């Protein structure tokens, strides 16, 4: 569907196109079934950031507040990239492995049931 406006030229550049982020791109990261964090986080990072730098650097500060975060086993944790199964390569950049601007990364740790096993 398309918008119905007074002119057929009702068209504006996307306000959040990657050029507007001064060399960064936005990546969202969420931890499934862990609702202590009310939502996924939005990070501005250079596309050349390695996955390892994202996971062990960028993500650390906010996620580590969760009592289970230190127990995450990254060997067995699974990932979704834009809702498709994804095998991250730690030393490759986000760009190289298809993590694009406004991509959503979700990780799952089924053995960790959240605070009081309540998905929190």
């Amino acid at each position, binding site marked *: 569907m398309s*918008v*119905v406006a007074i002119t057929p030229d009702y068209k504006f550049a996307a306000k959040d196109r990657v050029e507007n982020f001064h060399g960064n791109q936005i990546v*969202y990261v969420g931890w499934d079934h862990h609702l202590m964090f009310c939502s996924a*986080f939005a990070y501005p990072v250079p596309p050349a950031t390695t996955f390892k730098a994202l996971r062990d650097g960028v993500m650390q*500060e906010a996620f580590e507040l969760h009592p289970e975060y230190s127990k995450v086993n990254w060997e067995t944790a699974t990932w979704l990239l834009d809702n498709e199964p994804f095998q991250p390569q730690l030393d490759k950049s986000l760009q190289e492995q298809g993590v694009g601007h406004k*991509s959503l990364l979700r990780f799952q740790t089924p053995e960790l049931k959240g605070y009081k096993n*309540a998905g929190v």
Partner: protein
Amino acid sequence: MVAKKLNLKDKYRALTRDLDWDYDYADRKKAFPYEEFEGIKITDWSKWEDPFRLTMDSYWKYQAEKEKKLYAIFDAFSQNNGHLNVTDARYVNAIKLFLTGVSPLEYQAFQGYAHVGRQFSGAGARVACQMQSIDELRHVQTQIHAMSHYNKFFDGFQDWTHMHDRVWYLSVPKSFFDDARSAGPFEFLVAISFSFEYVLTNLLFVPFMSGAAHNGDMATCTFGFSAQSDEARHMTLGLEIIKFLLEQHEDNVPLVQKWIDKWFWRGTRLLALVGMMMDYMLPNKVMSWKEAWEVYFEEAGGALFKDLARYGIVMPKFVETTAKEKEHISHQAWWIFYTHGHAAAFHTWIPSDEELDWLSEKYPDTFDKYYRPRWELAKEMEARGERFYTKALPQLCTTCQIPMGFTEMDDPTQIAYRSSDFDGEKYHFCSDGCKHIFDQEPEKYVQSWLPVHQIYQGNCGGANVEEVLRDYYKMNLGEDNMDFKGSPDEQRWNEWKGKDKGKDTDKDQDVA
């Protein structure tokens, strides 16, 4: 000469629509240029039924009477320091959210109705919209005057208009009304007069104002109910406009249905903020959000849609989702604010034990299972001296702009993620409803001013969150934001009430 006397209806027509005439010298389409592009077909404006028949002289007379009463109460309220009569200083945060989030919408309603009150070529509809326009101006101004006294004694009210244009969570209400006002004139009326005023506004005003009364806030209660007395006229307009559009042409039916679908969903998202006010921010509860939803939407709205079925109008899309959401939405919304309490211009807090029990009782199927554990974790952290504030910025829904904290309704421990691709860009949504709205008009929503992205683009001043809050939002850090516990608001309240400093407000009881 014995002429036939006019009845009220004909007399009102003579005094309103009969003032207009068919143009012979100028192009009437140039005078009313926005009426056609949406595709609504009006074959005969004379079929418009005036929803109420108030001439200007009676309008001035009755409204002046209402204003006189209202301002007498405001004066008495401030002369007697009425703010001391509220149940608890936590309550005041609900009206901070009201002034910063809702009052500016009243202003936008004034502007929106002024616009359609000029642009409809049917004089009957025009005059009805003009009256609503001036009523809406009344609402924003009486709200400011009611809050003016609170502003002198509590933090967080002082920069409401500056904040409304900038602060992250206030882009939720702002974008709602920007969306309506940037739409064509008929969509605007279906959005605001019908979907919002008629179907949903009772949920904002009635329980909330009863809540104000129940919490000793006479100023808010009075302006609220006084404003509602105009609202009855506005609701009548909302129903009339729908019936008029549906009766004018059968081709209007799918357009109207499309707009009802869109605005119902957009409205329910906006009202999530009201839900949390009712369940969490009122120290004395009136009814739960779920109960309010059942009375004011499911019952009243159900009757309405049954009535509209004869035109081929059906219940709004995704209404079945709202039947599930009523169990969850207020809890999820308050958690969003609690965890972002450092970035909000009002205080947040953990519900008291008594309040937690009330929530369990009102939400027997969901509260203890899904939401109590969150508060237990929060309490544990607070007890350790580590009151939980989230440390990164949240992902926002492109449409409603609320942090994406709403869950799958069939799996309430999992965030709902929806997305669309448009023109090579990805867009994210909190729900099927918000995704659907985007997909209908992507060219509109690619323009969304999403606060988190704007901060990252460097458009909100400041290199870090603190600078954004202080310099761009103009929050007084340490006063407006953070937990209620330990806030200057709490401290002053305790001094006024002669309470021991540091005494747990949760267990606050009147001395008999």
